[in-house]
């Protein structure tokens, strides 16, 4: 009798346990999973409900191709340059005292600046090297014109790339410092005792060890820049220069509401690109984790 009752009791406890997680799943179901489903469904289904790629038709238009290319270009350039400069800064930080005030303050500042972006950041750069900006005016008074042909590149893709560095470099410091911390001084000493120099050490020991992590962090920076929207939206007044601004145009304009599937198709394309890049990043980080203990 009791043996028969036990599974029943266990079953009831299980069903009660599930109830505790219901509010959470209900909430993320409505505000995270449903939106994702709307994007995927809306871009892959026709209004009739059949599977089709019709919503992706507009993607091969020249201006859309240009937006894709510009997005990928500024994300790549800001990721690669940000990764190199960030790695230098991370190295300068980890070679200092492990619990020193410098390290603590740089890491804290990096935590804030990596999240810094959008309108405030754009204004900061306009106030610095805009045409009435502090640094621009100062340089001009000393005979240096950073806009030689009258082309104010701040309000163009080069300017956007420069502004992105402001959050890319701190992000690199945050994610790459742990890998640099894993490098042990004994390895350098071992290289020395075997007669190797600085070049040998970086070329054969530290370089190959750090490379997967460096590559992974560069990919993370790429995804970070690729997803960024607010900064570009505040800086660039002409629409549609990069992919997020194309989505903005579709969401806010009349043409957008006449082709509701198109914005979803672009959103899906963005998500897929970010997803692939982040998956590669995770794989590379796993590789680093083998020796990073």
């Amino acid at each position, binding site marked *: 009798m009791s043996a028969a009752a036990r599974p029943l009791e266990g079953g009831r406890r299980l069903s009660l346990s599930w109830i505790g*997680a219901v509010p959470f799943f209900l909430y993320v179901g409505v*505000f995270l999973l449903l939106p994702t489903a709307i994007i995927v469904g809306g871009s892959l289904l026709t209004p009739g409900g059949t599977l089709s790629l019709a919503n992706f038709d507009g993607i091969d238009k020249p201006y859309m191709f240009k937006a894709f290319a510009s997005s990928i270009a500024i994300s790549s350039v800001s990721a690669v340059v940000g990764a190199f400069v960030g790695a230098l800064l991370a190295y300068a930080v980890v070679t200092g005292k492990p619990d020193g005030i410098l390290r603590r303050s740089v890491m804290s500042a990096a935590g804030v600046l990596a999240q810094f972006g959008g309108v405030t950041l754009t204004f*900061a750069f306009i106030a610095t090297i805009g045409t009435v900006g502090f640094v621009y005016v100062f340089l001009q008074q000393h005979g240096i014109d950073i806009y030689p042909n009258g082309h104010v590149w701040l309000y163009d893709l080069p300017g956007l790339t420069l502004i992105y560095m402001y959050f890319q470099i701190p992000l690199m410091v*945050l994610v790459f410092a742990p890998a640099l911390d894993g490098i042990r001084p004994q390895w350098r000493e071992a290289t020395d005792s075997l007669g190797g120099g600085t070049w040998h050490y970086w070329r054969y020991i530290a370089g190959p060890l750090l490379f997967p992590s460096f590559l992974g962090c560069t990919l993370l920076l790429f995804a970070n820049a690729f997803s960024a929207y607010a900064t570009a939206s505040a800086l660039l007044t002409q629409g549609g220069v990069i992919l997020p601004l194309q989505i903005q145009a579709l969401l806010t304009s009349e043409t957008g509401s006449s082709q509701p599937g198109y914005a979803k198709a672009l959103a*899906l394309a*963005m998500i897929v690109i970010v997803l692939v890049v982040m998956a590669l990043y995770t794989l590379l980080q796993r590789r680093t984790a083998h020796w990073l203990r």
Partner: protein
Amino acid sequence: MNRSRRIKLQVFRITVFVVLGAFFLVPVGAMFEFSTRGNSINAPRTLEAWTQIATTPGLGDAIVASLELAAITSILMLVLVLPTMVWVRLRLPRISRIVEFICLMPLTVPAIALVVGVKPIFIWISNFTDSILVLSLGYVILVLPYSYRALDAGLSAIDLKTLSEAARSLGAGWGTVMWRVVVPNMPSAILNACLLSVALVLGEYTFANLMNYENLQVAIAYVGLTSAGTSIAVAVASLIFAFALLLILSFVRRPRTGVAAADPVELDLSKPLALSGAVYGRVGNR
């Protein structure tokens, strides 16, 4: 390490710190400089742009709205996420990976892409209310990865199972366990999660702008079209506010004696950025 190598390293470090220090500090300084400019080139320094913050139409409302959004988002996040995490740890450990995956998902879906799917839902919600405060429903999703990481670190640092079983055996209900056992044992993790949420909500622009709500960042952008000085003054103010939050955080995480010392939560924004919990769990624990 020999002497010449050490000198080379120091020269390298100082160069890097000076050059990058300038890159990061000059724009902030330039913003402050810009916000104190007078109307003409040779006009004396003035705080006019700062005093205009109060009188610029719409700006005050937007500041209040953003602060309210920050408060509501933090509370909603705590009420939704913390009991679920405790419950999953104690009773449903099998689905802990699913919960983690869902919580970190917003990192792989760019906000600009997510808003495409969220907008139809908000259009439906706007049938019932046109208050800007409904934005906090979406903001909870945006802050999910950061608050999950902060709370996860706090929960890992306490012996949740023993504490809750002890409380339950003394006759406490689940509400008492949450409110009088779990919460008092991880104050800095909870504060950490809240401050990260506040910082994110105060800086949020994408959702508000594309769903036609005027929060702080959207208002700064609008004001910037007519009065650059005032909008930059607000931007500086919001930046100082964010730094102040960080300062509070750094005080909170300072190890103290007693119970609080068992709650080593660090402000580390890189952790939630990693998709793989395993990798960063290990790095973070060092």
